[in-house]
């Protein structure tokens, strides 16, 4: 489990991140969202024991971040994908991964097996000995991601893992991340890709040099936006709209072409009443669905409010 309490980092007078408090249970995928310069990378570096917090504490499996004696043990448990791949450009993909696995004392046979599987999955096995300097940005990113978990760490920190990847490769990486989660690994992701975060993250934290909001993407949306139902109808008289708006629990009604959008407090309770009203008044109901708010909506609202 990763726990942080009031984790803060200042570079001189410049605040990178302040009061970052979070509890990430084992086996979760946790997303860190925020604009550029919001302190996401700094937070990840602090948790990787690369830089020391100015204030606050954090622990990974009871090992304390910032404690010199624990730093090496923490690094042994984590795998880090930094913002840029940072590969050894003159070496092949195999050697890049092999050297890193050796730093974590992975036995030779296991290294060979693991690297072969990973590079095969990423479609790079045939080109394993070519200098990676000649590879595309996306291919380098794939190798860098593979490097972060080649030693099978329990905690994986990924900074923009699918940036610069084509949709197919991004999908492969997402599947990999979900596979790692299924294995019980805990994954922390910095990302700007909100739809990706929405798809794979169990929880997210929106940060902007401080913790803005934390929670499950769906819960965040519900907390920020009123719930809406969308009803597709053939036709409705304008006079009925006012009556519809006055029904208990309905706060607003909008009509666009044949789409009725109602803001309701509790759709589970009020939907039967609304549908009964419409049917009683001869309105033909074709579809009923709840309006979903994307993580992007949540993010933009939170960041907008913060500004």
């Amino acid at each position, binding site marked *: 489990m990763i726990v942080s309490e009031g984790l803060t980092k200042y*570079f001189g007078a410049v605040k990178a991140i302040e009061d970052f408090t979070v509890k990430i249970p084992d086996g979760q995928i946790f997303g860190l969202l925020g604009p550029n310069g919001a302190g996401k990378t700094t937070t990840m*570096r602090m948790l*990787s024991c*690369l*830089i*020391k917090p100015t204030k606050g504490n954090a622990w990974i499996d009871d090992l304390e971040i910032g404690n010199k004696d624990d730093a*090496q*043990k923490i*690094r*042994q448990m*984590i795998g*880090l994908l*930094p913002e*840029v*791949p*940072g*590969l*050894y*450009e*003159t*070496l092949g993909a195999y*050697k890049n991964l092999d*050297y*890193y696995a*050796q*730093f*974590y004392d992975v036995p030779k046979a296991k290294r060979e097996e693991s690297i072969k599987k990973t590079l095969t999955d990423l479609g790079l096995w045939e080109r394993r000995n070519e*200098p990676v300097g000649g590879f595309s940005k996306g291919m380098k990113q794939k190798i*860098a991601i593979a*490097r972060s978990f080649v030693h099978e760490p329990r905690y994986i920190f990924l900074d923009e893992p699918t940036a610069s990847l084509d949709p197919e490769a991004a999908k492969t990486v997402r599947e990999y991340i979900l596979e790692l989660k299924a294995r019980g690994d805990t994954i922390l992701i910095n990302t700007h890709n909100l739809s990706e975060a929405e798809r794979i993250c169990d929880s997210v934290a929106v940060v902007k040099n401080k913790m803005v909001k934390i929670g499950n993407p769906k819960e965040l949306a519900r907390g920020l936006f009123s719930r809406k139902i969308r009803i597709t109808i053939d036709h409705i008289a304008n006079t009925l709209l006012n009556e519809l708006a006055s029904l208990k629990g309905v706060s607003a009604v909008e009509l666009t072409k044949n789409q009725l959008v109602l803001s309701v407090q509790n759709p589970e309770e009020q939907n039967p009443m609304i549908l009964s009203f419409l049917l009683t008044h001869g309105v033909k109901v074709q579809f009923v669905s709840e309006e979903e708010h994307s993580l992007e909506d949540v993010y933009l609202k939170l960041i907008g409010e913060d500004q």
Partner: protein
Amino acid sequence: MRWTRAWIVMRKDLDEFKKQKLVVGSIIMMPLVLGVVLPLVMFVPMINMTPTTDVWDVPQLIITGYLSDDFIQPSTNRTLENVSMNTSVLTNADLINAQLTDVTLSSCIIENTTISHATIQKSILNNTYLNNVVITESEGKNLDGQNIVSINSSLSFTKIKPSELQLVLPLMLNMVLMIFIIVPATLPTIIATYSIVGEKNNRSLEPLLATPTTDGEILTGKVLSAFLPTMAATLFSFCVGVSILDYIFLSRFGYIPLNTTTWVLAMLVLAPTTCFMSILACVIVSSKVSDVRAAQQIGGFVVMPVVVLMLGVLSGFILLSPLTIVLAATAYGCIDLGLFYFARAIFNRENILTNWK
């Protein structure tokens, strides 16, 4: 510190280094040019201008005592021309243009001859090169050679005019030896100054720092990856250069002028400690600057202590001997140790990651 991790860092760096063909070429070529070509350019013209014989003032001796007739050999009372003989005893022979080794000569007239490991008595020697000979009760002129042992107190060979080569030879040999010391100090500067800042510029340092590898292990690996190719190239050029010089001197003058103990000690203890000192200083520079060019520019200054040593030797203030070599190596070794601990103390991961742009 776990040596296996330092070893992995070193192997990784060497693997990268091997791919840089031009750098590998310069590492091999520079010692060969400085340690082989340069000494040849210095020595060969001078050797060619130097006569193989020196002028000796040999007192005329009156042969006294009994001329032995005890040795009755096949070669007695013969005139021998253009012969090569080993392990013989000659009595009452005239020797002209002969090559003799391990012989005992008695009552001979010897001209234009090279004699090695011989005992000569009661003979007349002219225009002859002598090597490791014992001479008694003889006379001669225009003689040359080394390790001439005179048993007879009345016989003394005094060289009255040394050649120019013999005058400058010690100085030139010291210069050559110092070249072999300065090469391992200058050669690794490019690799060593690149070691940290180069990885930072390639953005490959952050993933390395995120591994369990300690500061000491990273620094040790970086130092070894610069040390091993440098010393291998230096020792190779040393063996080639010294062999060629030995061959030239031996074939021309019949002897080897290098002081083997001093030279071997210098290569085994002084060159490595000098190399470590240079590398450690460069690694320190590399971990403090943010640009490869700046690192290499500043790294150029790390050879200054070695240049000072070289000037001391060439000016005669420091005499090269086994003792001075060991003392200098011990001093450099202590400095190396201090530099390593200093490098580790100032190696700051946070500073490297956040202050370098």
